[in-house]
């Protein structure tokens, strides 16, 4: 399963880098605003624009589940 192995390798290599950056991270996080937050999310927001047109109250209130466990 190539993707499986790849994601693990990814996690390991990033681990070392994350350790090194740790001290700087706090400062960076504090100064980030929209640009960091929305990096890569713009396309997601575009994808879900049509969901915004639905009636949210109706959608949410339709989900009532009883019983279980």
């Amino acid at each position, binding site marked *: *399963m*190539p*993707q*499986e192995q790849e*994601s*693990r390798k*990814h*996690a*390991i290599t*990033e*681990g070392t880098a*994350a*350790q090194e950056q*740790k001290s700087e*991270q*706090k400062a960076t*996080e504090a100064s980030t605003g*929209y640009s*960091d*937050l*929305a*990096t*890569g*999310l713009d*396309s*997601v*927001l575009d*994808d*879900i624009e049509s*969901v*915004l047109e*639905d009636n*949210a*109250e*109706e*959608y*949410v*209130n*339709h*989900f*009532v*589940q*009883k*019983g*279980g*466990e």
Partner: protein
Amino acid sequence: MPQLRDSRSRVSRSEAHPVDYSLRRIIGIETEYGISVTGAERDPDPGTVAMLMFRPVVAATRSTNTYVRNGSRLYIDVGSHPEYATAEARTPIDALRMDAAGELTMHRMAADAQTVLRREYGPHATVHVYKNNVDSAGHSFGCHENYLVRRDIPLDMLGREFVPFLVTRQLYAGAGTWDADGNFQLSQRADFLDDAISSATTRSRPMINTRDEALADSDDYRRLHVILGDSNRSQIATWMKVTTAHLVLCVIEYAVHHGMATGFEGMELADAGAAMRAVSRDRTGMAPLALAGGGTKCALEIQNTYLRVVDRFVREHGDDLALHMADAPECLELWAKALDAVHFDNLTELSTWVDWAAKLRFVDSLRIRHPDVSMAKIRQFDLDYHDVANGRLYDSLVSHGQLHKMLVDSDVEKATVTPPSDTRAALRGAFVAKALDTPNCTWSADWTHVAASVDDHAEAELLDPFRSAPTPEFQIVMAVLDAAR
């Protein structure tokens, strides 16, 4: 202040090392799915939708309670929940494969049901099947994990040394949710659980259910039924919650069997329910939790203690663990990174695999683009993320690389018809596949039995969940089916 780790463990194999069977385990995940329909000309009740979903199952088995080709259980539970319980897995990655196969199965059943539904309820009727844990009215339903442990592990010890781990793992295992007032929580289950450990089942919601039904030789084993967890969409989160729990149990079991201390002493919580609710409302992981022995520790401190002890254990017992789970070091790596990310409030890092963080980061961005977005809309996206039938947010996050997967789609596809090869599920799966393909056959299965009647009748007990080799009894059952084909 949580300690930061700078060393990484690796599993090493030495020669001629005896196998420690006390570290092998059977793992299972039971998931209750919620149902809703929107866009219909009139409202069908959820029971109707569940029955439509199960029509093909009923046609094949004359029942809404069955086992499928991969050895897993598929059924309609009380309250019209479709439910899926994974076939027995020895490794977390196999448990994840089975769980993902369950999602895909639900997706397909929902798509078929929607086609039928639209004939009667209009062309816009849309079926939603939620892999989550709470509805709009505040009903909660569960995602239960099962871990087989040796019988000699004292339950009160699990309450003291395992529950604190479960309560604080929300930091990376929580699915996250917003209530109607807009308050965000890491866990969907925190407000619905009380006693830490109990034999009660329905009235109160204990975190660990000890109803003693081992589904194995009960002289040797008990099945630990953990009910405090959230349903995860993130494959990595599912794998992580099961892997970390398995490793913590390995440490506890090894210590009991060797008369040693675990290293988890002093973690016992004064009030596990209160701690669960406090952790769920604190994404910094720093809220003080009262300890049974006096004093306080925060969730990050508790998790870092578990991580440190497990890390040492994996380094010292890598030989034994590697036999059962070769990917333990990857879990430790990610565990440490997640705790660091919580500590540094690094939402971007967490959001690549932690469900609550993925949703929260998305909503933060949504609010920047649409400052007037309503709370109802946010709750809609919260539900949409968990909708395995027609949800858009989860798939969009994945396709744009914002949320990482662990399994390739073809692997999940294969897992819908392929049981784990090294447990009793291999036998059950082979039996179900053959029975479904045998005309005029009456058959039944449960976790520990299979039975078939065609011209002859035969049944077999499958008591050892670790055994994937056919027993003579099992071979007779299969022969009865073969004779009729």
